[in-house]
């Protein structure tokens, strides 16, 4: 494929100052438009000329989508979708109550990318499957084949779970943390405001193979609300990647656990980069309630978590990796709480 990779193709640019103006532009230009947040996912698509929107709606001037506010809900916070990952990682209230999210945000990419990349963009970004990103006409791109799931495909980063024709994974670090914290995503569209649970924001190819989230073309993710429910719980976040900067996770894990004495009262456990959406391990959570925090319980949880995993040619290493991450999330690593 001859692909021009020097400059971006021409597009029309709008920089609305309010959510209403942005939505009006989305309505006017529909599927030919593209909402731009930090731009770190978007501009690569444009430079490779694989996605070629006619109209780009840059949200950087929408002040009401920035910043972190306390909410009426005790201990809760609301994060504007255009808040940068650096702001999320360094915010005092998030550090003290939702350290899980600060930890996840601080492990995204590099300082420069965190200074520009936004929390809304991080959860809404597209998959990194290089066949898809390289412009191959796969299922996700509207075609009728998956190039990553053939006998000769290179699929070391691909899915273990929930794949359906497409085997690409969700690459976000903050998404599993937000699902573990039971966050609510606020979506604005033609029908007004809609609030969904974090775990319902992400979809599998069975629902729509060309999208990663429930966002419709005329909608915007405007903010993320974290309820006080899990504030100050026992958190664990770990990201395994090839290099300690830039790289997306091979597997990451986020857990929030309420422990009384040594007994697990409640837990939310989420793994990402093993499927098309952050994978909440509800069966494991159910089994863990009432158990003690021990090596054996962690081991058993790890075994249970992998039930149903379907490795591809080159990603079977993710099975022991994920098993050990689940175990570490439960019993801790000693060094980190």
């Amino acid at each position: 494929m001859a692909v021009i990779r020097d400059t971006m193709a021409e597009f029309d640019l709008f920089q609305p100052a309010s959510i209403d103006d942005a939505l009006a532009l989305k309505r006017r230009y529909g599927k030919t438009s593209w909402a731009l947040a930090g731009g770190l996912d978007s501009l690569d698509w444009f430079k490779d000329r694989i996605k070629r929107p006619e109209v780009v709606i840059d949200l950087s001037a929408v002040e009401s989508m920035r910043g972190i506010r306390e909410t009426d809900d005790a201990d809760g916070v609301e994060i504007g979708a255009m808040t940068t990952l650096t702001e999320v990682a360094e915010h005092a209230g998030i550090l003290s109550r939702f350290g899980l999210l600060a930890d996840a945000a601080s492990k995204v990419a590099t300082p420069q990318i965190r200074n520009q990349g936004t929390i809304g963009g991080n959860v809404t970004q597209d998959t990194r499957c290089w066949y898809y990103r390289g412009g191959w006409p796969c299922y996700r791109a509207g075609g009728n084949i998956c190039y990553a799931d053939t006998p000769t495909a290179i699929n070391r980063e691909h899915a273990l779970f929930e794949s359906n024709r497409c085997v690409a994974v969700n690459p976000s670090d903050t998404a599993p943390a937000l699902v573990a914290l039971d966050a609510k995503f606020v979506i604005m569209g033609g029908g007004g405001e809609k609030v969904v649970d974090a775990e319902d924001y992400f979809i599998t190819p069975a629902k729509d193979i060309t999208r990663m989230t429930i966002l419709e073309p005329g909608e915007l993710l405007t903010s993320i609300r974290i309820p006080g429910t899990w504030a100050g719980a026992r958190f664990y976040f770990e990201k395994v990647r090839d290099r300690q900067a830039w790289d997306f996770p091979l597997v990451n894990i986020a857990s929030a656990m309420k422990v009384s004495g040594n007994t697990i009262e409640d837990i939310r456990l989420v793994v990402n980069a093993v499927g098309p959406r952050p994978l909440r391990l509800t069966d494991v959570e159910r089994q863990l309630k009432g158990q003690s925090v021990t090596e054996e319980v962690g081991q058993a949880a790890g075994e249970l978590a992998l039930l149903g995993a379907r490795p591809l040619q080159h990603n079977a290493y993710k099975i022991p990796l994920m098993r050990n991450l689940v175990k570490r999330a439960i019993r801790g690593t000693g060094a980190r709480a």
Partner: protein
Amino acid sequence: MADQLEMLEETDKSLSRRKFIKGVIAGGAATYSAGYLFRTGTVRAQSGAAGSVERLITLNVNGQERRVDVMKQETLATTLRYKLGLTGTKMGCDRAECGSCTVLLDGTTHYSCSVLTHSVRGRAVTTIEGLADADGTLHPVQQAVVDGAGFQCAFCAPGFIMSMVAMVDANQSPTRAEAAQALSGNLCRCCDYNKILDCAMSAADYTRGV
């Protein structure tokens, strides 16, 4: 083009390659401006649309107001290098994957290859050219890099230096691990990381006046 040709005719033997390239850049910018002024509606009409953008904009670069003609899909690195002649900012990967184009926007580091120029209106852009004082006195970070001979080929140096400036602005007493973290968004293909980190540490010392 006419002014470029005139310039070529006037060229004496001492004209350097750098000056010639800068002349071509200026000629190019003039051509763009002419296109803006005399264009006859080939681009989608925008009148009345909230948030539509103009091509001629003012940027704040290194403390100066710079009027510049910017395409909608243009990145800041392109504007700095090819419109404003600030070639100290290097283009490496053009994909936010190497760090050589790092500049400061309101004091924080960004990859200028992955920022639309239109989105930095109203923000203070600082490039490597904006660090030294008007009298030529180097910024403490630059002095530390010169004294430590921190780089081999130094293509990545402007990006690293901008990251070091942001680091010492935020933390004047970093540990070596914190310095490594602050510079983790820059790559050096000569793999001079130890010497670069030495420079970062002495840059912090110089900034504290030690």
